[in-house]
């Protein structure tokens, strides 16, 4: 079986945020503007959390890229009254926009707060819409959205592999964030393939998960920093 997963090396990550902008470009994420952003409605499927430790001059900064953890045991799934979010056979936490009726229960129940609600119909000042990725739906008002692990890229790579009558190779699929990362901090791949780089990284002693004690079984692995 395939179980898609991601390893993020927090010792490589510098917090530059290129991943977050790459995600906007790839996934047609709308910007909401100053007023709505002030109401907490900005949508960042991928965000960089910044933590301070200590007081001046002994301040340490930690950056942590946070995206949907694609939980194996996802708190968002059982609360959806219309089954718009569920676990796919390949280990993705799917979000079916066409099914979503906008109760926002899932967002309330996500301990990582990585689900974002479309409060408004998306607007792209012409001709900005020419940049929109045709492989990704533009979500209408009233539906929830979140990181998909760039499912369109996964499917495209699977399709190419199928046409060439072979398996998808490790490293062939790069999510937008992982492709862009100047520090190569983000590795994407199949956790069920013991030979894959992501599975290798998952086996190191630096491995940790976000909010591990909640038993959400995230598919995103953080590699602890050395600082």
């Amino acid at each position, binding site marked *: 079986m395939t179980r898609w997963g991601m390893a993020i090396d927090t010792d490589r990550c510098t917090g530059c945020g290129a991943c977050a902008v790459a995600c906007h470009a790839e996934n047609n994420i709308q910007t909401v503007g100053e007023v709505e952003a002030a109401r907490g409605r900005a949508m960042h499927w991928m965000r960089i959390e910044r933590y301070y430790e200590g007081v001046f001059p002994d301040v340490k900064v930690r950056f942590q890229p946070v995206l949907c953890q694609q939980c194996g045991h996802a708190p968002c799934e059982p609360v959806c009254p219309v089954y718009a979010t569920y676990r*796919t056979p390949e280990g993705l936490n*799917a979000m079916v*926009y*066409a099914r979503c009726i906008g109760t926002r229960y899932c967002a309330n129940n996500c301990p990582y707060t990585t689900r974002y609600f479309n409060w408004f119909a998306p607007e792209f000042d012409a001709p900005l819409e020419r940049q929109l990725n045709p*492989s990704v*739906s533009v979500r*209408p008002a009233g539906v929830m959205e979140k990181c998909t692990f760039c499912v369109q890229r996964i499917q495209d790579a699977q399709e190419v592999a199928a*046409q060439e009558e072979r398996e998808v190779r490790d490293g062939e699929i790069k999510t937008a964030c992982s492709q862009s990362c100047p520090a190569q901090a983000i590795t994407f791949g199949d956790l069920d393939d013991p030979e894959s780089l992501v599975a290798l990284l998952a086996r190191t002693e630096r491995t940790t998960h976000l909010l591990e004690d909640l038993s959400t079984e995230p598919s995103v692995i953080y590699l602890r920093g050395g600082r």
Partner: protein
Amino acid sequence: MALVMVGCSDELPPPPPQPIAFSHSVHIENEIECTRCHEGVETQAQAGLPAMAACASCHRRQAADHPEVVKFMEQYANGNGEPMVWRKVHVIPTSAMVHFKHSPHVRAGVDCATCHGDVGSMTVAQQVVDVANMGWCLDCHREQDASIDCMTCHH
């Protein structure tokens, strides 16, 4: 195959207006393969349409006096590079947020006619199957043991 005939064609939308009265049947009668014009259907999400130059390369000689061909050649020669805008006959509404790919269906051996009807016998392409009906897709996906995971199509 009885599934194909869900609903009778009268309930389906009429064929949309097109820039010229193109006849599929005439082209099929002349033994032109679907894939000759609908390039990429085996490898891409979209089944393409050829550029006007491709049509013109044959029609300089073939049926050059047919009124629709004359109309086309006129546009090709004097249209100032303006593109031709055809309208899709089979449209899945955007609100469904479906990303349909032709290539896996062709690879799975699904005949074009399964979804598009017997275009070869149509003078004007029109919908015979309600492609916007998800139940119809799923019936086939179940029958063929293809993915019925929502995210396969909806993302």
